[in-house]
């Protein structure tokens, strides 16, 4: 991309040549009405890698995640999951791909009529009908322990705090043991202590599970903590991509301003 500062020379896919990225986004465009949200975004994320997507509000960060998981359709460009183009897939074909992906929504999007335990067990109940009820319950408890929410199985989502809801949302996203994890503002609206806890949790999960993760965030501190690479979006394009040090060395005005204000 001629206009973007591509600082990703140390990208693991390029080093290893033949290695196929888990997520490959090529020249993605998306418009809502007259508002062009994405204007040619290209990104790749491999196994064990965490990419943080940063940018101002309304620059299409969340839309990018929704396009990757197929909740929105791009105007042009491609999204490949494990080298498979998701354009034109039926709901059932897309379902097979989504089973390999976990999505944490910005406001957790827990099912408000189900308990915490039922929320976490929801994907298991629908996709792992081969498991006994006891085994499903054991897995739900294990996931809740993993996110530090043990003992809260019977509570309703409305009875727990925002930070706890995000933990439960994360446990639900991990229920099918995904290879790709998409996190939409995992620390937004949380106090610094809760944000730090969520960051530590994401780091721990990354170490243990070696997923390919994309984290959309405003929080530069959080992005530095959890991501191997950062991509900064402006006016629908990736203006810079690389390690935090690469961003610091960038001479693009917007990048400097973003780092200064963060």
């Amino acid at each position, binding site marked *: 991309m001629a206009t973007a500062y591509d600082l990703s020379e140390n990208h693991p896919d390029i080093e290893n040549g033949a290695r196929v990225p888990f997520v490959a986004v090529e020249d993605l465009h998306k418009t809502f009405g007259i508002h062009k949200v994405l204007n040619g975004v290209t990104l790749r994320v491999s196994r064990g890698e965490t990419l943080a997507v940063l940018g101002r509000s309304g620059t299409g960060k969340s839309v990018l995640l929704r396009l990757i998981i197929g909740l929105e359709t791009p105007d042009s460009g491609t999204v490949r999951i494990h080298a498979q183009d998701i354009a034109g897939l039926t709901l*059932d074909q897309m379902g097979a*791909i989504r089973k390999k992906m976990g*999505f944490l929504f910005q406001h957790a*999007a*827990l099912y408000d009529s189900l308990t915490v335990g039922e929320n976490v067990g929801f*994907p298991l109940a*629908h*996709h792992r009908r081969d498991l006994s009820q006891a085994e499903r319950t054991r897995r739900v408890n294990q996931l809740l322990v993993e996110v530090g929410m043990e003992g809260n199985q019977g509570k309703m989502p409305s009875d727990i705090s925002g930070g706890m809801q995000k933990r439960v949302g994360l446990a639900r996203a991990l229920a099918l043991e995904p290879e790709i994890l998409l996190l939409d503002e995992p620390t937004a609206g949380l106090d610094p202590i809760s944000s730090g806890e969520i960051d530590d949790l994401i780091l721990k999960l990354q170490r243990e599970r070696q997923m390919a993760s994309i984290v959309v965030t405003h929080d530069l501190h959080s992005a530095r903590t959890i991501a191997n690479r950062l991509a900064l979006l402006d006016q629908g394009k990736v203006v810079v991509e690389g390690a935090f040090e690469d961003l610091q060395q960038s001479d693009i005005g917007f990048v400097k301003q973003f780092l200064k204000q963060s």
Partner: protein
Amino acid sequence: MSNSESISAAGIDPPFGEPAKIPWSAITAPVTRPVNGVLEWFGCLGIFSWKALKAAATPPYEWRELVRQLDEVGSKSFPLVALAGAAIGVVISLEARYSLSRFGAKSMFPATLVYSVVQVMGPIITGLVVSGRVGAGMGAELASMKVTEQIDAIEASAINPYRLLAAPRIVACILMLPLLTLAADACALVTGWFAQAMVESLSFHQFINSGFNGATFNSFLPQTFKTAVYGLIIGLIACFQGMRTRGGAEGVGRAATNSVVLASLFLILADVVLVKLILVVFP
């Protein structure tokens, strides 16, 4: 840019005698925009119906959710439907007695009550009551799930939301409407007879015998089972309005209102077609 165009662009009236150039699309917009909106709505409803009915017809089926919806649509609507049926029975009884007495046709009272309740009032009143209660409830519930991204979360979990949410609700409406209609009819007949029995001696046995005298299955079954079509309309429109909602609390309110209004309207319009169809198919 011509002189007149530059004047128009600057927001200044063109010189006298020179007509202002207004784009053709701007002239037709007040007509074409609402027409396009209506056509788009029907197109989206068609696509939604196809996806929802396909999900309802193909396994795996969401039995647990279906049972929950049968309870929601059937058991929980029963008191309201029964009450509405009972009230209608009394009203028709009072009106019929007065009108028939004027023409010296009091002996026709049982048949008048039975036919007007079972063929006309029972189905339509049940449809409208369920449309109000269930249509608003489903529309608001699904709209609330939509605006809080719960439907997106279902889809992101690789679960078909049409299969999980729309199909059981639509099937529950289709199955429960005829049963609720039978309940409404029964209540209306009992209260109608009771209202008559209060003023003159008429046993329930006499009333039923006289009312159903000469009736065949064709006289009542098509009229009762046409309410399955009402159920389809209520379920489809409520799910469609709920699952396409945008905006926050305002969107939820709008979805609930639109569900009731549109379901009731289409139900009455469908009745016109169904009555004619039944008269042709079951003469």
